[in-house]
């Protein structure tokens, strides 16, 4: 039986095998159970038999968390430029166009205003399908703006991360988005407004080393890979295999870096509890 920690790193990088096709049946990669797609959707894409969390896209999170599945999206049209004229091995514009075509999104994060169990929230959801959820200028700018809006309206902020890290195609400009987002969060913190960070599979690199790890409360989905360096780089550096379960949500919980590992089916309720604590 395959286990979550036996995920190959290929699935951590950029293949879409774990995406859920709109087919009728889906096989659980962990326990092998064949699940009726509608049944899976009803369980927030968690295997009812072994709790394996299938990767889901931003639409699913928005529907799952926003009351009535409704929200007002900000900056949906914002698109990246190609500031470095990056064209290796293919022009960055083409890569962006392909990602836009594939996902129907303009970038790797969506930022919305909505309500969660009647409480006003700002919510940012990353989408791994869009160039591995990497953070370039647009992701940084949209996150910075939703933080500023939270500051202005005093709405609690929730960010769902899923990212391979900073986007290489924008070079040092991507790197600086880490400061852009972290510095805004410092202001939000000083204003006493809550920020809940939710880490999903995978959350690595520059996203981990900026807003993802700065939540007042940090939740992680079961089995999610979370780290700064990717497993392949670590393996190459130390020249040996990584221990079982290394860099998983459960590992981070044990090491003290997340508040709780939360089953996706309980995510809304868990966020609700934090918000109620804040408003109580």
């Amino acid at each position, binding site marked *: 039986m395959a286990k979550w920690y036996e995920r190959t790193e290929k699935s951590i990088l950029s293949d879409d095998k774990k995406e859920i096709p709109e087919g009728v049946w889906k096989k659980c990669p962990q326990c092998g159970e064949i699940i009726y797609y509608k049944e899976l959707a009803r369980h927030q894409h968690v295997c009812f038999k072994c709790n394996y969390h299938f990767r889901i896209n931003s639409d699913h999170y928005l529907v799952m968390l926003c009351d009535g599945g409704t929200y007002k999206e900000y900056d949906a*049209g*914002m*698109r*990246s*430029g*190609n*500031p*470095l004229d*990056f*064209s*290796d*091995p293919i022009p960055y514009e083409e890569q962006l166009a392909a990602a836009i075509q594939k996902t129907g999104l303009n970038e790797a994060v969506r930022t919305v205003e909505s309500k969660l169990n009647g409480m006003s929230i700002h919510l940012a959801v990353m989408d791994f399908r869009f160039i591995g959820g990497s953070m370039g200028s*647009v992701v*940084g*700018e949209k996150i*910075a703006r939703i933080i500023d809006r939270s500051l202005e309206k005093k709405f609690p902020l929730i960010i769902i991360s899923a990212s391979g890290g*900073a986007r*290489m195609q*924008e*070079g*040092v*400009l*991507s*790197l*600086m*988005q*880490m*400061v*852009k987002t*972290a*510095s*805004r969060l*410092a*202001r939000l913190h*000083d204003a006493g407004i809550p920020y809940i960070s939710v880490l999903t599979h995978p959350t*690595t*690199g*520059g996203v*981990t*080393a*900026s*807003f*993802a*790890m*700065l939540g007042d409360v940090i939740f992680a989905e079961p089995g999610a890979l*979370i*780290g*700064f*360096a*990717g497993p392949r*780089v*670590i393996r190459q*550096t*130390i020249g040996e295999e*990584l*221990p079982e379960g*290394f*860099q998983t949500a459960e590992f981070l919980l044990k*090491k003290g*870096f997340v508040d709780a590992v939360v089953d996706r089916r309980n995510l809304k309720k868990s966020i609700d509890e934090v918000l109620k604590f804040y408003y109580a």
Partner: protein
Amino acid sequence: MAKIILDFERELTEIEALIRDLKERENLYNENHQDQIHELEKEFESLAKKTYANLNRWQRVQLARHPDRPYTLDYIQQIADTWMELHGDRRFADDPAIVGGIAQIAETGVMIIGHQKGRNVKENMIRNFGMPQPEGYRKALRLMKLSEKFNKPIITFIDTPGAYPGLGAEERGQGEAIARNLFEMSRLRVPILSIVIGEGASGGALGIGVADRLVMLEHTWYSVITPEGCASILFRDATRAPQAAEAMKVTAQDLFDLGIADRVIQEPLGGAHRNPLKMAEILKRVILEELQLLKSFSLDELLEQRLNKYGQVGVYEE
């Protein structure tokens, strides 16, 4: 240790050797070679000017990594009148890949923090090639908070191939440590001056690099990932790093053109490693100028500018 000579330095190094020989002969045998020495010096200068004006990005990366280049502690020794290193993060350990301490420069108290590489194998065993662990970033933050308490400006020297990607580093929260530094440095109530003296790779550099002013030495690089790392992801071939360096636009001049670096400091002809003392002298002058400039702002102005400096980075269409 054998002296390392980069390809494009070879001819220059040969001329330097000739000059040194002639000068030695003058001393030993009381000969006079002034004319010849003068000629060779002129030749060196014009060749060096030509060579260094036309370096490609990968050659600059190589210069930034030159093992004879001055490191953080070399500069501190030359620049500071007094220096006391302070150790440890008070939580886990002292990370020798980041050094920090209190110093006086021209009667100004400053906190200096920097990545520290080793000069040889033994030193690099200790310094871990300037690749910090989380405790390095946490030590840096502790010292920065100390500096804030004492109302003293902070100078950071950046020179790292990246934060260390190891088991312990991940276990102790490398990502959290860097994130925390970005968060705290962005609102630290003292001026921060960052100077890239060698290589600036990724979050490992940025973890001590949030600043009011970012200064880069001429032959340095700074980007989101190493050229090798970029090449191994994009081309699945790390040996294509030169191509990745070009694509990512990593040099000091690139960062100045992109509006990320505020100032590029010219190095002595042929690079900092050919004349470290001269380099230190130039750097000291620049530091004093920059501190003077930063003193001209109120703290509130400084913090607002710092927020905007990073807030405006990025290219997008709406």
